[in-house]
């Protein structure tokens, strides 16, 4: 038996393969729901209603999707460059924490000034963390996988210290630590008056389009793709690899940090130990499902945002645990990775 590369897989074949993966994913979801003991039909209806049954639930799904799309995009740009960072998680937190610190420093100023400064602080926080990983790699040859993973722990515990000490709200307890609530005036403004449709949603869309254009049409995007495929050829043709690694990691940090500031200033309005956790890792999965393309990541992000949102409603109506979504996410990732391989290769029996 041999594995053979398909020469130029056709569009219909691609659609058929990914369609089959989606159908299998749905079937496995049904299996998972029935294992949980809930009625399958009613649960699926509840899932759908919760995800997109009303303007409010759609808005809520989009808001849920926003940080996932952003961390997904942060993954796209690095993975296309061949930098296998897993630090999106800590970049989100660094962005949120830097913004929070800025909000403490600027309390009392005009809301516009505060919000702009806080967002800028978030970007700086994410960029700094990305730059640190890039520096470890280009200066000391430390794998970005290792350094970004370790930084996740450091940032996680730093946040735990901040919200249990300097930033702890009065009335917080040892078991549940959080900051106080952000002053209403400093919340990210809503773009439409439904739910929490904050301005970060628009920013995420802008980043999707910008990244898509960057990768497809701009010299930097060309370099990013080339580095991912053959860094040697690229650097031998005069491109400074160190600077490129730094640029990519900073871009990734900035995009992930947007997710952090959007969540804290637009949705939860306070920093807690757990409201940001998991977003970075979800972003990796979503970017991979989206084929590491910004538009694919947008679609995958919206889909899983909606599932997350719908699962809350399903949990209320039929009692299926919300952890179901995490399981579906894993199942779909595996199915899509398989589909990607099936699309490109075929097996020939000798």
């Amino acid at each position, binding site marked *: 038996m041999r594995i053979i590369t398909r020469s130029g897989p056709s569009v219909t074949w691609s659609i058929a393969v990914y369609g089959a993966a989606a159908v299998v994913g749905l079937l496995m979801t049904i299996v998972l729901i029935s294992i949980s003991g809930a009625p399958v039909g009613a649960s699926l209806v509840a899932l759908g209603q919760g995800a997109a049954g009303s303007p409010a639930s759609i808005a809520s799904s989009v808001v849920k999707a926003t940080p996932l799309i952003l961390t997904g995009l942060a993954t796209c740009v690095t993975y296309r460059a061949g930098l296998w960072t897993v630090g999106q998680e800590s970049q989100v937190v660094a962005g949120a924490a830097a913004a929070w610190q800025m909000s403490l420093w600027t309390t009392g100023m005009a809301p516009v000034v505060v919000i702009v400064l806080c967002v800028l602080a978030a970007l700086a926080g994410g960029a700094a963390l990305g730059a640190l990983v890039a520096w470890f790699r280009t200066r000391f040859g430390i794998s970005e996988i290792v350094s970004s993973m370790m930084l996740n722990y450091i940032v996680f515990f730093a946040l735990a210290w901040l919200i249990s000490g300097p930033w702890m709200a009065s009335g917080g307890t040892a078991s549940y630590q959080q900051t106080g609530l952000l002053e209403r005036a400093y919340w990210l403004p809503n773009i439409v008056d439904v739910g929490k449709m904050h301005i970060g949603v628009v920013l995420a869309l802008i980043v999707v389009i910008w990244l898509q254009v960057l990768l497809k049409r701009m010299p930097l995007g060309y370099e990013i*793709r*080339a580095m991912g495929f053959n860094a040697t*050829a690229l650097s031998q043709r005069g491109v400074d690899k160190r600077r490129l690694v730094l640029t990519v990691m900073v871009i990734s940090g900035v995009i992930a940090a947007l997710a952090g500031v959007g969540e804290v200033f637009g949705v939860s309005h306070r920093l807690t130990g757990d409201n940001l956790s998991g977003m970075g890792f979800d972003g990796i999965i979503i970017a991979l499902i989206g084929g590491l393309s910004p538009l694919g990541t947008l679609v995958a992000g919206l889909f899983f945002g909606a599932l997350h949102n719908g699962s809350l409603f399903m949990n209320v109506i039929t009692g299926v645990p919300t952890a179901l979504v995490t399981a579906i996410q894993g199942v779909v990732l595996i199915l899509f990775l398989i589909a990607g391989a099936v699309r490109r290769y075929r097996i020939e029996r000798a």
Partner: protein
Amino acid sequence: MTLHRPVLRAVGLTKRFGSVVANDDVSLDVAAGELHCLFGENGAGKSTLSAMLHGELQPDAGHIEVDGRRTDFRSPADAIAEGIGMVHQHFVLARALTVIENIVAGTSRSGWRLGLTEARERLSRLCGDLGIAIELDAPLWQLSVGEQQWVEILKALYLDARVLILDEPTAVLTPQESGKLFGMIGKMRDRGLAVVIVTHKLREVLQADTITVLRRGRKVGTLDGRDATVESLTRLMIGGDLASSPARSSNSPGRVAVQATGLMAKGSWGETIVDDVSLMVRSGEIFGIAGVAGNGQKPLLEMLAGIREPESGSLLIGDRQLEGLSAADFMRAGVGIIPEDRYAEGLVGPFSIAENIILGRHRSKDLCRGLFIAGDRVVAKAEEAMRRYSIAAPAINTPVSRLSGGNAQKVVLARELDQASVLLLANQPTRGLDIGVVATVHEELRRKRDEGVAVILVSEDIDDLFDLCDRIGVMFAGRIVGIVSPETTSRDIVGSMMVGRAPAGGATCA
């Protein structure tokens, strides 16, 4: 045909890859005690044929017989069991293991024991028979390339090979090592072994007993070695006559294009790999660098291209001091490089032809419009390159990883020849290419020279260097051990300089 009964026989072998027919109804007989040569251009189907003969590929039609019995090789292991041994062009050896360990690894037929004692006896006998001296306990990395090839051959014979297939065996050898190899082949032949060599070098083919010539996947003839001539073989191989190669430059070289002084480079373990090299090349001159691979040619060219920073030394290219500057600065100064390994260093495999053509120039003003790469200008540039170098590909957006070696090299050529306005560096630019593309490459190097560009050509093929170069520097152990003129020096002298022997009595005439 031959007097003996064939030990290995291929009957009507056909192999297709998609729509490409790599081998079309190829038959051949290999007799015991003969040297059989598979000859043809690259892409003629020699490698596919030898891959089927040793079980790596399975034919779509036809079959293989060993000693008159029909076989069905599912893997190289099946072929080895039938006594078919294979020595690949790129050796399959473990550098950290010793010679004997390399030979014995994976061959044990007695469970977990290595059986080194018996192996040692048999191997010393084999070495004696072949007339070679090799230290069985030396770690492989200490061996020269030629000696590593002996290990591959011993490995096959240790497994009782009766037919030994050698793929391009002299591609990496010095002339002296090649001579020794053919001596060994002669001894194997005398012992009744059948030896099949795959080659496209005419000089080697003429030593064979039987020659099978392939062209475009078909067998176009089987010749007795005694009847074959260079002319008849060439005609068969390319299906016509080759234009004879034009002479060296007639115009006198111009001003100094490159002046390197005291260049030093260190390897990853701190060892000196380029040792105090100074050279001067004028524009309108082709300067050859002869040497066995791994004697510092690659790091030297890398320093001249700005890819590797010299430990010390100075480097003047055009009218600029460039040492310590970046590869981008070297490119701006008009330096182009055709790297040794086009896929690893020259091309981005999944990128299209068009994207590869602009690699390194993707930020230049004439390819960009504002913040964006101007797609139409890239397309125009790529289409022009495809026409100019007759790159055979379905479209300009075909990934270069799908191109044949020759067409991929033409993509590199198109980009780098355009780039090189002062200095063109070429490291083995014709390696693994078929004779048609080789001619194109040589022609383009001459054209650059005539345009007044300085060309530095690194090659292991002394014939090529003698055909093309105005002067030849020979590298050995990181140093340039001598600079000779092809007009007044013989190939043998260059060959012995390549292995570190100073020419006896200086350079004599050819």
